[in-house]
């Protein structure tokens, strides 16, 4: 481009203009993600805030009864929040050992051949649609749990936790495996040179070195579990009451939105309340993602990788 300074012909001017134009087009389109993210926040705020004219924020969050269609309606989402938390924690109990264990197996034990087969399979399993998991939970796991625990219904928080956990496992495994891959081989070799066994190397060198990367995997797995909709909608049972045990039906936030939005009259209090739940859900996952981002950045810096 600098050469064109000598004699600027109209063609060159045209060319320069075209170059600038393309750069601007790409720059503007690159902001699409930011635009949509901000758009989502604005829409949630605009449609969600009106509910706080009816119910105070504190009452909305800590209210213990969710009767949006009664007269007078009650909008307390504590049961929904707790249901989400319970189901997510339950899922973590399933997906963290399985996901991390599988990742360690893939990274440290599996031979190159095994790895070449297992890694794509795990990734493929991560693509199974959530509605298929929900369907499986409904037709197979539900009768099974009902029989074992002698329950009136098998659609419970436990069911949702198991299905969500299995569902999040491939995700956790893939991310954790990436983190383990980043641990330089020199770490392992140094440890072996000191006479450590493979197990000692794994537990005392590799896992601590990959620790923050593994935490990122757990946080992203939790974020996926708490935002997951179809499975909990289908298998959690849907009772909007304060959860007491894992063997009762619950209604997590996502399930409440998905189940009730169809019937909520547009522009009514119920409609606004559901958007407010979505806003809270968005904030929770946003915080999870930011925390994961910060931890993974530190991890990369710690291991001397470019941010």
């Amino acid at each position: 481009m600098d050469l064109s300074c000598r004699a600027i012909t109209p063609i060159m001017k045209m060319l320069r203009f075209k170059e600038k134009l393309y750069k601007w087009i790409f720059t503007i389109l690159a902001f699409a993600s930011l635009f949509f993210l901000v758009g989502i926040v604005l829409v949630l705020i605009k449609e969600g805030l009106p509910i706080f004219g009816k119910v105070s924020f504190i009452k909305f969050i800590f209210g213990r009864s969710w009767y949006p269609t009664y007269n007078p309606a009650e909008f307390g989402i504590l049961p929904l929040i707790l249901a989400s938390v319970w189901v997510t924690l339950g899922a973590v109990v399933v997906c963290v050992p399985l996901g991390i264990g599988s990742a360690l197996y893939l990274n440290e034990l599996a031979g190159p051949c095994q790895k070449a087969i297992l890694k794509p399979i795990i990734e493929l399993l991560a693509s199974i649609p959530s509605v298929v998991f929900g369907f499986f939970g409904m037709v197979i796991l539900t009768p099974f749990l009902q029989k074992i625990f002698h329950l009136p219904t098998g659609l419970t928080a436990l069911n949702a936790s198991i299905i969500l956990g299995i569902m999040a496992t491939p995700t956790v495994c893939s991310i954790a495996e990436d983190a383990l891959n980043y641990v330089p081989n020199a770490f392992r070799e140094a440890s072996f040179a000191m006479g450590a066994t493979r197990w000692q190397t794994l537990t005392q060198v590799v896992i601590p070195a990959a620790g923050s990367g593994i935490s990122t995997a757990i946080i992203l797995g939790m974020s996926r579990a708490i935002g997951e909709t179809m499975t909990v909608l289908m298998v959690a049972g849907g009772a909007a009451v304060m959860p007491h045990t894992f063997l009762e039906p619950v209604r997590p936030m996502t399930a409440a939105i998905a189940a009730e939005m169809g019937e909520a009259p547009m522009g009514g209090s119920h409609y606004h309340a559901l958007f407010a739940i979505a806003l809270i859900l968005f904030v929770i996952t946003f915080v999870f993602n930011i925390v994961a981002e910060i931890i993974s950045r530190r991890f990369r810096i710690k291991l001397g990788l470019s941010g």
Partner: protein
Amino acid sequence: MKKDLSQNLGFFSLFICMAVTLLALGSIIYFIAVRGFGVLNWNFLTQVPRSAMTAGGIAPVIVGTLYITFGAIIVALPLGLACAIYLCEYSPKSIVVNIIRISINNLAGVPSVVFGLFGLAVFVKFFGFGVSILSGSFTLGILALPMIISSAQEALTAVPQSIREASLSLGATKWETIKNIVLPTALPGILTGVILSIGRVAGETAPILFTAAAFYTRGYPKSIFSEVMALPYHIYALMTEGAHPDKQRAIAYGCSLVLLLLVLFISGFAIFLRQRQRSLNG
């Protein structure tokens, strides 16, 4: 000796984790395959539903899924590609790039039902598209955007810097280099990402709940403004709505198997392609 024991126990437990993971996920595929296979036949795939969803086929449901999936890709591909080109080819290393990167990551983490609400408020209500293929495509398109961006970015980064420099040194401008050299070289990788996104989008349910899906429409969708039946939503609806749960369940097995095969085939193909490209790139 004690060291060996703990090592063996430890390694064995890792093996168990891997085995349980594969077994759990494998059994889901197995159950649905075995029970859905009996329902699956040519008529099931090519006919319209009859007798209040208890008989007939699911052809319009499959067609509906294809419509909204491709609609979503048409929305997401130009935007995602442009974003990736900016990030890989034009971006000055600056705070702007960081902001874009963080917003992509966060958009990828937004719960799918929240996309559904966004689509409901913006496309269905504000733009007045109603519950339609158009609204569903836009909603799913936004959901697919981060996936398209990151795979396109990977493909663009894999293009060797030297061929860009070669093109520039021959007097080509930046845009000419991108258009004639970088994009054609990165095309296979970009397409792989697109196929992968198709697999993911085809199975999404929550975003189309309020924006595109209907449990029953008469025959095939007529225009982009009509409601559609879509496989993932159909499975959910068959299990929770309708008057004949027992008869519907058989069809739900069939739908699940079709969706599972569709998604696993598309994703498997994309993962295979990417694996090959990565090994070719070294």
